[in-house]
């Protein structure tokens, strides 16, 4: 058997295999997606009680509420991203596999986004309705979340890898990651507010797209380095 033969099938196949496995696990357990969505709905529906149920007030702060709630909901599931694999020894197997670790991290991020980020995007228009968000703002909200939520997952993957093995990793993860979410939050909310007042929101979306491309290129690599560190 040649080294090369194993290599070629191992790299691409590894990414697909891990993606399929994570999606299958998420589907069978189901609890992570349900928790994240329930959290999102509850946090958003708390605000009318806090700031008052006047339609004008809610419309003014709606974009911010939706984005902050989506961000916190994504964060809620991120500390489990590598934790389960770390605890049952799977991570050692992934690190020792011939597939490129960067691609494996990318596969895990993709699975995480498909099972938490994407459902958040789908649910957000319904909650926007609850918050009386002006009609022209909907495209900006959805497009912004489509571009922004994968960034949340990718940046979060770095944090999740860094806090592996730490006690109270979830709290540590929030402290580490939330400040890094600020640019995404600013331009995500910016796009919705611009659209609500009838302005163009192309610039904000382009910036979110740029964040996504940068995160796609850098985050899996950095998370992979952190994972190797965690295994030592």
């Amino acid at each position, binding site marked *: 058997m040649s080294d090369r033969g194993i290599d070629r099938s191992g790299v691409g196949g*590894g990414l697909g295999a891990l993606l399929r496995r994570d999606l299958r696990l998420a589907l*069978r357990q189901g609890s992570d997606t349900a928790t994240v969505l329930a959290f999102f709905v509850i946090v958003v529906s708390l605000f009318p009680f806090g700031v008052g149920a006047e339609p004008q007030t809610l419309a003014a702060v709606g974009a911010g509420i939706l984005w902050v709630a989506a961000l916190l909901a994504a964060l809620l599931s991120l500390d489990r991203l590598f934790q389960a694999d770390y605890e*049952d020894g799977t991570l050692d*197997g992934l690190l020792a596999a011939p*597939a490129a670790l960067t691609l494996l991290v990318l596969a895990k991020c993709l699975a995480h986004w498909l099972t938490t980020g994407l459902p958040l995007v789908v649910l957000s228009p319904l909650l926007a309705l609850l918050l009386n968000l002006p009609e022209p703002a909907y495209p900006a909200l959805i497009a912004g979340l489509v571009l922004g939520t994968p960034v949340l997952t990718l940046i979060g993957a770095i944090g999740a890898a860094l806090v592996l093995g730490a006690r109270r990793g979830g709290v540590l993860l929030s402290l580490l990651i939330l400040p890094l979410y600020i640019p995404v939050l600013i331009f995500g909310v910016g796009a919705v507010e611009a659209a609500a007042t009838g302005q163009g929101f192309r610039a904000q979306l382009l910036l979110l797209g740029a964040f996504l491309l940068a995160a796609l290129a850098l985050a899996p690599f950095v998370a992979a380095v952190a994972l190797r560190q965690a295994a030592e």
Partner: protein
Amino acid sequence: MNPSDRLECRDLACLRGERLVFKGLSFALRAGEALRLTGPNGSGKSSLLRLLAGLGRPAAGGIAWNGASVADDPDAHRRRFLFLGHQDAVKPWLTTRENLAFWAALHGAAAAGIAPALARFALTAQARLPARFLSQGQRRRLALARFAAIPARLWLLDEPTTGLDEANVATLETLVAEHCAAGGLAVVSTHLALKLPGGGGLALADPAKADLAPAGPAGARAA
């Protein structure tokens, strides 16, 4: 398998936290040989296997494959070996077959090898059963079935016999013997008197008692 394959460790030292687990560890292993790693708890058997699997860097010394340092090209090294730590890495929500199929796909091994590998460790009847219904011994067998399903030149096994009954220990011995007969290499840590081909043994000393004075462990084979 290449009959000239050779794994060589020279003057390896391993730090775990601030503690020196072993130092001055040297051994060589040729194609067709299996090394039995023994020693009391805490003597560094797992640490040595993790070093060989690239999950950590030696504090001193080096590991070489056919004369070339594995640290220079870790990607090439990962394509050579298959590693199983003391954890089974079995996902309870996947079926027995899906668990093995995942590892086979990750290593780019043929799917055709999965059913025979399960049969080898008498797991055919449980193939469609979620792994959370498996007993501890069955989980271990499922983890070991990877070695029957995925071709690799070097096998690294950390206490593979934990939880296995006698029949399956014999299966494992046969599997390692076949692997070595085909020109493979294996490093196996164990507390049992496993029958391994090549007969090489490496006994690691308890670092607390040995005070690390004798540089080479007593049973180390000359390179």
